[in-house]
């Protein structure tokens, strides 16, 4: 399976639409078997979901994702784990170990905002938090 991690220097990129690079990481089970870097500098945000799909990406790890980009990614069949912060390598390790769990966003009838989240339980993920609840 191939996952993409939007990066900013060595960290998770705070915004997918503004990220300049993604790591493309091939996993077999928990093992990383290959890693390449893909530049997004020449790809405008509306075209990024399709670009990732064309590279066979199944899951995207990133910081913030705009709603429009989130739905584009879903349309391309890419699972999104957003709201992450910190070192990209740490997030990759946490994902391989099954410690990052996607949660649905913007479901009809669901309330979003600070107050809607404050009551949630922590998942124990390293420094990950935000709209996906990975905190």
């Amino acid at each position, binding site marked *: 399976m191939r996952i993409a991690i939007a990066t*900013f220097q060595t*960290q998770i*990129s*705070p*915004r997918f*639409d*503004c*990220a*300049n690079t993604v790591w493309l990481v091939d996993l077999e089970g928990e093992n990383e078997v290959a890693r390449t870097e893909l530049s997004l500098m020449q790809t*405008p*945000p*509306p*075209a990024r979901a399709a670009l990732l799909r064309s590279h066979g990406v199944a899951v995207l790890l990133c*910081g*913030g*994702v*705009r*709603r429009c980009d*989130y739905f584009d990614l879903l349309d391309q069949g890419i699972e999104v784990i*957003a*709201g992450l*912060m*910190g070192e990209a390598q740490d997030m990759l390790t946490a994902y391989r170990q099954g410690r990052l769990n996607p949660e649905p*966003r*913007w479901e009809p009838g669901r309330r*979003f*905002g*600070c107050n809607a989240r*404050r009551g949630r339980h922590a998942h124990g993920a390293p420094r990950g*938090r*935000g*709209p996906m609840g990975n905190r």
Partner: protein
Amino acid sequence: MKEQAYKAILDSIADGVFTVDDQWRITSWNAAAEQITGYSREEALGRHCYEVFRTNVCQTDCVLRKTLTSGKALVNLALNILDRDGNEKPISVSTAALTDEDGRIIGGAETFRDLSTIEALRRQLLREYSFADIISKNHRIQGIFEILPDIAESDSTVLITGPSGTGKELFARALHRLSPRADEPFVTVNCAALPDTLLESELFGYVRGAFTDARRDKPGRFTLAQGGTLFLDEIGEISPAVQVKLLRVLQEKTFEPLGSNTTVRADVRILAATNKRLAELVEQGKFRDDLFYRLNVIQIDLPTLAERREDIPLLIEHFIGRFNAEKGKEIGDLTPDALEALLAYDWPGNIRELENAIEHAFVLCKGATIDLAHLPRQIVGERRASGRPARRFSSLAEAEAAAIRQALAAHGGNRVRTAAALGMHKTTLLRKMKKLSVTYP
């Protein structure tokens, strides 16, 4: 106690405020920052600023880095942030460096204001000032907006006049779209682009054998526009021979394709446009008076962009929005210097030149704000050549006040002439002077 007092003061401010240390780690985060970003103080403290204050320039053109590097404060930069829920919010940002007792930079402070409401109002205003894809708050254009539906409803010939680049084709398209012929073709012919013989065959078409290379029938633009509208641009350029043939179509609503004996009925509405003064061409004998009167049933005279300067910010916003969508960029605004330069320029090429200037800026601008350096040389160059000091306006209101003061001085304080020069009604001028505290020179 002192720290609690600082916190209370920060929390009483309506703008978001946060501070960072020299490692970009957040050291304070006020209540408004919590509300605007969706991140609580507990979540934000100790994090890198770009992790919770996610602007569109953090990864490429960090404004706080600029301030910490140069020591200079930045004021009211238009950016956007992604809040915790993935909503983009327009904000204005100001930065300042924090120094210790020895003047060494130890961190930075950033204040930001949520412009979502203002942006919504701006969009609403833009919609209010838009009519059939034409944007203007100029009183002359607003006057045209009022009568445009009635003109469109009639089937009369319309002559649209105005210098090059003032949007004559846009008005022609609007007339077609608002007319009962809207579902039929809109066909354009640029009369200046074709030599005389070609223009005739282009307008009326030809049949096989009409001339050496006519191997098959070719329909003309009149035929293609049947039931719809034919827009004859640069009508002042057509030769006397074509003028005669066009006059016949307008008078009798019929024409014959080249080489044909069959008369074709033309169910076409004619809209014509020119950047020349046709009445003067008539006086000089270069344009038939009978054709002129046939074309000039209704005349729409468009002002130059210099005569409708108040529209420049609206048009800039419109072009920025369009180019953002076309080019996949996210440019938010202009710096006050760049806006001032665009407001001060005379725009001989009118709206087309403004559109080109914004497109030029889009090519050069890698960040989120268009600056002077991104504008074409002739615009910035003229500004320098004018010898005026490079003033900084912190807002559009200030730039507007300066433009009014300058125009008042140029017209000896005459209110009517100043209003005419600025392209606004005298009562609008008075209202703006009062609002902006501008006094007579």
